């Protein structure tokens, strides 16, 4: 059982510990593995959606009438603005202007909250019109994909909140963690751009 570990020593050598720590040195690499994986997982969802759209084109087209393009456009703009604000927050942080950075982070979070509220009101309106998850194949994709995205938005808000706390506290200001949180938030924006195109705009 344990025999296959036999030739390795019982504990790591200092060189091995060094190597393991260097591997870890950049926290950005950590979040990036997640982001790339998430992009590809979402990519597979998008392709699945396209396939079903192709198979049930009429159903999808008529079901798309239930969506409100205005809401979709508004949500897209809100997220784009939030990304812009966050990029400004990061620029301020790199210039060591922490107070301004905190304000822009708050502005980003405000945009995120607007998105959440807007998304939920959009759902409420749709459900009120009898357009629910089980209505048809399009509605399944729509509610599910936007729901998963909303989950990402909520996690992103948590990350931004933590970022804000760190910016406020002089003892734990750290550009590297800020960059991780920002990268995640921009990915949320990026995914929404594709979801908006696929759900609202395709014909």
């Amino acid at each position, binding site marked *: *059982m*344990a*025999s296959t*570990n*036999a030739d390795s020593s019982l*504990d790591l050598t200092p060189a091995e510990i060094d190597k393991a720590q260097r591997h870890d040195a950049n926290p950005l690499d950590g979040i990036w*593995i997640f982001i790339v994986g*998430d992009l590809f997982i979402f990519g597979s969802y998008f392709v*699945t959606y396209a396939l079903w759209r192709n198979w049930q084109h009429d159903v999808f087209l008529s079901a798309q009438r239930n969506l409100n393009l205005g809401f979709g456009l508004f949500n897209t703009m809100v997220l784009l603005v939030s990304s812009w604000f966050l990029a400004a927050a990061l620029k301020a942080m790199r210039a060591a202007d922490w107070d301004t950075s905190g304000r822009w982070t708050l502005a980003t979070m405000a945009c995120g909250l607007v998105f959440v509220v807007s998304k939920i009101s959009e759902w409420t309106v749709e459900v009120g019109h009898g357009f629910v998850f089980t209505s048809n194949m399009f509605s399944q994709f729509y509610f599910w994909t936007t729901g998963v995205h909303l989950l990402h938005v909520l996690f992103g808000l948590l990350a931004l909140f933590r970022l804000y706390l760190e910016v406020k506290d002089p003892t734990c200001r750290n550009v590297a963690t800020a960059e991780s949180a920002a990268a995640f938030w921009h990915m949320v924006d990026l995914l929404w751009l594709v979801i908006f195109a696929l759900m609202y705009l395709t014909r």
Partner: protein
Amino acid sequence: MSAAAPPIPSGMVAKARWHLRHNPKADLWVAWWSIPIAYNIMGMVYFTITHMMPPPDPSKSQAEVVEFFTRYGFEIRLGFGVMLVSLAFLVWANGLIGWLIMKMDLPHAKAWGYAYMLAMCGGGFTGAYMSAFTMSVASLRPDRDPAMLQLLYDATYISFDGTMGFFLFGSLIWTYAILADKSRLFPKWFGYTCIWNFTTEFLVSPAVIVQTGPFSWNGTIAFWIDTIVYIGWQVIYVFMLYYAIKRVDPPKDRFRSMRLANLPGSRGTSVASTSGLSPQPA
């Protein structure tokens, strides 16, 4: 202390014996080995013996369900027999991970470790065992009323998919622990990959509502993408545990009870005289 132990002999069995006797992490290593072995047995049971995976169509007619259980009845019961013998060893994996969480440098590490163990054991007990029972009972008498067979069929897959919350929560706990751990027992990037795992656990939930399409229990999204992500993550996780075990301190000074044995009133003999080891400082 490994320096004082006798040299590692050659030969599989002798090496294994040496490690069991002298490796202070022997219990961790055996728990580690149980992971690839037990998961492979599980995979074999689900995919090749019982034909439970990939899942059959949820919208099967009653006649097709009867046919399914008639055709695979013996294999289903045999496969679940194998699984029931081996499944308890997955608890070793949970114990190992929970214990590693307890060793991390984060506030209330012990509680996080217990929470992980509770969540994962709960998921294993309900998700795997309940589906095994309903499936076995259905295949035991395929001449039952077809409506009842269909009930058992649904119960199998819905109890399998419907217990994802346990795994979701377990995974969430582990993820948090890794990301918050200051000792970096696991690399941070591995913590981020755990997020794939628990988010994909969220995503199977529509399978308990819809009967066809990509979100049903045999669908592209609810089953295939989820399973591919899970298996990929599982491979990473086995390697990460390997490095974590190498880095963590041994559970306990193995020779503590030997020292106790030297005390008056016990029947042990002196360690120093029998094995040439000097007692460790307390």
